[in-house]
């Protein structure tokens, strides 16, 4: 995966030189370890800033919304699925895009690594199988597979579903993964236990909205939490307001979420916000046989009607 960057740079350079695109959306090295930041590369010279490693977990589809330029975009499996969703939802046109597909072996979970560090992390480097973490007075070599983001561990679409050029050969897709073990566990709880579970889950939320801002689906010009006429939800730190925000945001992602993990990655408190969207994802799969972002041909379940749609809940 670390060798992809040469090919990514070569493609980006060519696209910019031939004026096939006005800009390339990719990653450059961040100012702190494990935080590569998205960047817009507009000139051939700047292509050298691009990087590719296990810290490129941010979903770049987030930066396509309503753009008018011709854009080259680097896309992992999940990014590509969100690009499909963006095209379906008319947030960008397919012919504006040159998609540089990157087969993915999973991104590193910075929360997991931070939890293992004894002091502030100064440097993180990786090979195909290991991660080297260095800080003041400590140095650790970790197994890369054990340090992946949870959504990457259970990912079944590592290869881009839509692309114009591939930066490397496709990787093997995982087949024997149980995607919804954690959701089933919550489903089995009694109503009061569920209530307590979510109370505990959200107890550290500071309502910074980082999860929303990182999410490529959250592109509304005015988010319901920012609206004050009418004010849909209280703006306080009250647990009820926090809960309302998280549940409503998740519902806005129903049938659209690709489980890219951008929300969870962005959360400064390490809250497992994916648990909300995953439940909806599971329902969509089981009730409507739908996985978001796999094809441009089919309309999503929330804007199609089928006579055999499940309606057992209507009395």
């Amino acid at each position, binding site marked *: 995966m670390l060798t992809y960057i040469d090919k990514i740079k070569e493609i980006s350079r060519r696209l910019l030189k031939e004026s096939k695109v006005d800009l390339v959306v990719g990653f450059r090295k961040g100012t702190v370890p494990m935080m590569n930041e998205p960047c817009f590369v507009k000139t051939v010279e700047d292509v050298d800033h691009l990087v590719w490693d296990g810290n490129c977990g941010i979903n770049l589809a987030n930066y396509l919304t309503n753009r008018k330029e011709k854009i080259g975009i680097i896309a992992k499996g999940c990014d590509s699925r969100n690009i499909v969703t963006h095209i379906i939802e008319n947030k960008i046109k397919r012919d504006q895009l040159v998609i540089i597909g990157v087969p993915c072996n999973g991104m590193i979970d910075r929360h997991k690594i931070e939890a293992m560090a004894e002091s502030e992390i100064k440097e993180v480097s990786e090979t195909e199988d290991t991660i080297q973490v260095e800080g003041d007075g400590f140095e650790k070599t970790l197994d890369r597979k054990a340090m992946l983001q949870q959504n990457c561990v259970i990912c079944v679409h590592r290869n881009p579903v839509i692309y114009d050029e591939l930066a490397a050969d496709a990787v093997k897709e995982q087949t024997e993964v149980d995607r919804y073990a954690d959701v089933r566990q919550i489903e089995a709880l009694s109503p009061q236990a*569920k*209530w307590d579970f979510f109370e505990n889950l959200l107890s550290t939320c500071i309502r910074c909205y980082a999860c929303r801002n990182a999410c490529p689906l959250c592109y509304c010009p005015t988010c319901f939490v920012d609206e004050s006429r009418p004010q849909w939800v*209280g703006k306080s730190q009250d647990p*009820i307001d926090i809960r309302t925000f998280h549940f409503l945001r998740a519902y806005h992602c129903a049938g659209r979420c690709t489980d890219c993990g951008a929300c969870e990655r962005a959360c400064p408190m390490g809250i497992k916000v994916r648990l909300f969207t995953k439940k909806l994802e599971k329902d969509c799969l089981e009730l409507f046989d739908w996985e978001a972002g796999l094809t441009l041909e089919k309309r999503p379940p929330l804007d199609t009607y089928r006579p055999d749609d499940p309606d057992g*809940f209507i009395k």
Partner: protein
Amino acid sequence: MGIEPGRLQFSWISSAESTKFVDVVNVVTDKIKALGPHENFVKREAKVG
């Protein structure tokens, strides 16, 4: 999310089905009265001190 199953009800009622509407409302209110007040979704007043 922690709401008892009986507390939430979906119905399909045409604007012409006034009697069905009345029936559904009566049934649902009776059912929910039997469940008692739902205390989870109540904002508590901030404690001072």
